[in-house]
């Protein structure tokens, strides 16, 4: 039997503070990677059976 999909834990203390700091300044992906992500999305939408 497959293990259940695990719940995402609540963050406390230093984990919570670090997470919120990162949220304020999300790391940007490179323009090349961003373009690739968009291309993957556009191609996938054409492949997606409606």
């Amino acid at each position, binding site marked *: 039997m497959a293990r259940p999909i695990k719940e995402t834990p609540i963050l406390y203390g230093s984990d919570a503070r670090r997470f919120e700091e*990162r949220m304020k300044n999300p790391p940007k992906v490179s323009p090349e990677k961003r373009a690739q992500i968009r291309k993957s999305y556009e191609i996938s939408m054409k*492949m*997606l059976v409606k």
Partner: protein
Amino acid sequence: MTREEYQERFRIRRLSPGDNIAEFDCADEDLNDFLLNESGLYRNALLAVTYVLEDKKTAQIDAYFSLSNDKVSISDFESKTEFNRFRKNKFVNEKRLRSYPAIKIGRLAISKAAQHQSIGTYLLEFIEDYFVVDNKSGCRFVTVDAYVDAIPFYIKNNYQFLNNDDEDKRTRVMYFDLASLL
């Protein structure tokens, strides 16, 4: 394989009631079992939706992923123990618990035959922009409970650890901030 070659060879299909998956092997028993025996149960209970990457000619499933709504909750408490103590004494102040909407990748697997063709990265990219461009509701993060063996794959795709220490040592919770794409 290029993205155009993916398009030529595969289609992406959302599993529907009545779908009976007879065969899938990614060399991991848990991931195989989820698709073959449990994805339908999650779908029927409205807990997770599974999409398959299917060969157009043979209808063979080469990859799949399952998605569920999720949230990342941040507490002002220093620990779970402190949080539970407050809850027991009914001192819960909602402002001390903030939540942000997320989408969870419950499972992501590539069949043995289709591995080492960057299909995993391609599917992650699709999921990420799907929830930026085509989101039906707010969604800030992608979360995943990553197998320890898959951690390098998620790091390569700009995922970070959600916390420093997971109770379950077989997996680590990781996340990607969709604001990175804006």
